[in-house]
């Protein structure tokens, strides 16, 4: 469904992606792991067209992402940004219901609000926060509002950039279950980035490891422990010694 072939992206002299190949099948979840600063977030932004790759091909359902109607293309996506990226001029519920309040998916205000409150409940937030502003919430709460916004319009493809970072272990478990549920029950296709190995095992059908600008290893999550790949082994066990330098 989503396919990247030979994707390159450099910022000045900083060559971040150097030929990324990745395939994500419809209705499956792919978890991308890799050291901080290796370009995982940049890769997601390339797929969404927020960052223009220097070379390579990115297709969704066989069509190039730069071709065709970009609005219709983006309407199929939901994205949780690493920093939440909530609109701080709007109250929480209008953030969550943003898509439902304007454009093609517009519906009555009361209905949009109802959906927003329901999505907030699913990410473990009480209806009380619906009328607060993002700046009044804690980091982890903002993250969960961002997650609620990403899933609000029930998109078929959802990207999660570090969905559980900054959450307590219980809330992280709730979010992992939610993501898993969205993929298995709603049949969504998901790409998640995470550093949390518990999350990886809870969310992933497949895992890909990004390092040095390329996908070093990819395979089903069941093979993660027996990958035989020194990079993956070092990463999942969090060892300081190994092929991945500690200073990056």
């Amino acid at each position, binding site marked *: 469904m989503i396919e990247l072939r030979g994707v390159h992206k450099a910022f000045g002299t900083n060559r971040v992606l150097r030929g990324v190949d990745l395939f994500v099948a419809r209705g499956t979840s792919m978890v991308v792991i890799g050291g901080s600063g290796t370009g995982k977030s940049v890769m997601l*932004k390339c797929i*969404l*067209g*927020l960052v223009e790759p220097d070379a390579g091909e990115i297709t969704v359902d066989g069509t190039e992402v730069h071709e065709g109607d970009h*609005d219709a293309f*983006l*309407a199929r*996506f*939901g*994205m949780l*940004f*690493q*920093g939440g*990226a*909530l*609109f*701080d*001029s709007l109250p929480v519920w209008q953030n969550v219901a*943003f*898509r439902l309040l*304007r*454009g*093609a998916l517009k519906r009555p205000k009361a209905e949009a609000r109802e959906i927003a409150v329901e999505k907030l409940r699913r990410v473990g937030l009480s209806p009380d926060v619906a009328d607060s502003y993002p700046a009044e919430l804690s980091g982890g709460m903002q993250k969960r509002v961002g997650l609620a*916004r990403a899933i609000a319009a029930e998109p078929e493809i959802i990207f999660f950039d570090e969905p559980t970072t900054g959450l307590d272990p219980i809330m992280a478990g709730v979010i992992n279950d939610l993501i898993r549920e969205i993929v298995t029950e709603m049949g969504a296709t998901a790409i998640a980035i995470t550093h949390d190995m518990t999350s990886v095992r809870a969310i992933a059908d497949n895992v890909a490891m990004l390092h040095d600008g390329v996908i070093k290893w990819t395979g089903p999550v069941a093979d993660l422990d027996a990958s035989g790949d020194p990079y993956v082994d070092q990463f999942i066990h969090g060892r300081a010694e190994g092929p991945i330098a500690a200073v990056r």
Partner: protein
Amino acid sequence: MSPLAPLGALGRAVLRLLGEVGAVALYALSAVSHVVRPPFYAREFGVALIQIGWLSLPVVGLTALFTGGALALQIYAGGARFNAEAVVPQIVAIGIVRELGPVLGGLMVAARVASSIAAEIGTMKVTEQIDALVTLSTDPMKYLTAPRVLAATLAVPVLVAVGDSVGIMGGYLVGLARLGFNGAAYLENTVNFLETWDILSGLVKGAAFGFIVALMGCYHGMNSRRGAQGVGRATKQAVVSSSVLIFAANYILTELFFAA
């Protein structure tokens, strides 16, 4: 260092400037095209109107009041003592309505509005809110730029009109209190002397300046670099460039309107 190095640096600076001018021109065209095409974000437009128009009234009014007063004193002191009672109101009216009202009003709006637009949009840019807008199928040009540009283009002429009245009142107050003029004669001199085009030209200038201010605020905000420093830089550039462009546009418009 090669003797040609300074030339090279100069060339690079000129090229960068030309590139920037081109980028701003394209951005302006795109902004205008988004203003006239649906969808139209009424709520954002309303908020922008309040921010840019209503909340700028005090600062524009005070600026005009003191300028009108100072102008009256200057002209009186500056040699027009023969028949001062007729000349002071006339020059105050012309000076405020044609030139100082729009320019000073535009500059005050640049300081207040270009900076806040650039800081707001710049912060949105560096916290990925602009990216988030795009992924939510909302065009930032349409949602952020178009309402602000339209609101400023409509609101600043109104601010200028208010500033004109307040500025003339400043001259009137000083004329009465300090120079011992007759109030009725002052007003009569003002009204008889001013022509409709004097006032209209100032309002047209106001619209142009409003457009410039919102456009530069949005442009620099959208192109803000990363981090707090990037936003600070964008804010500064928005104020500086809109002020300079206001002066340039003022000269061009004056040339167009009044050069015989």
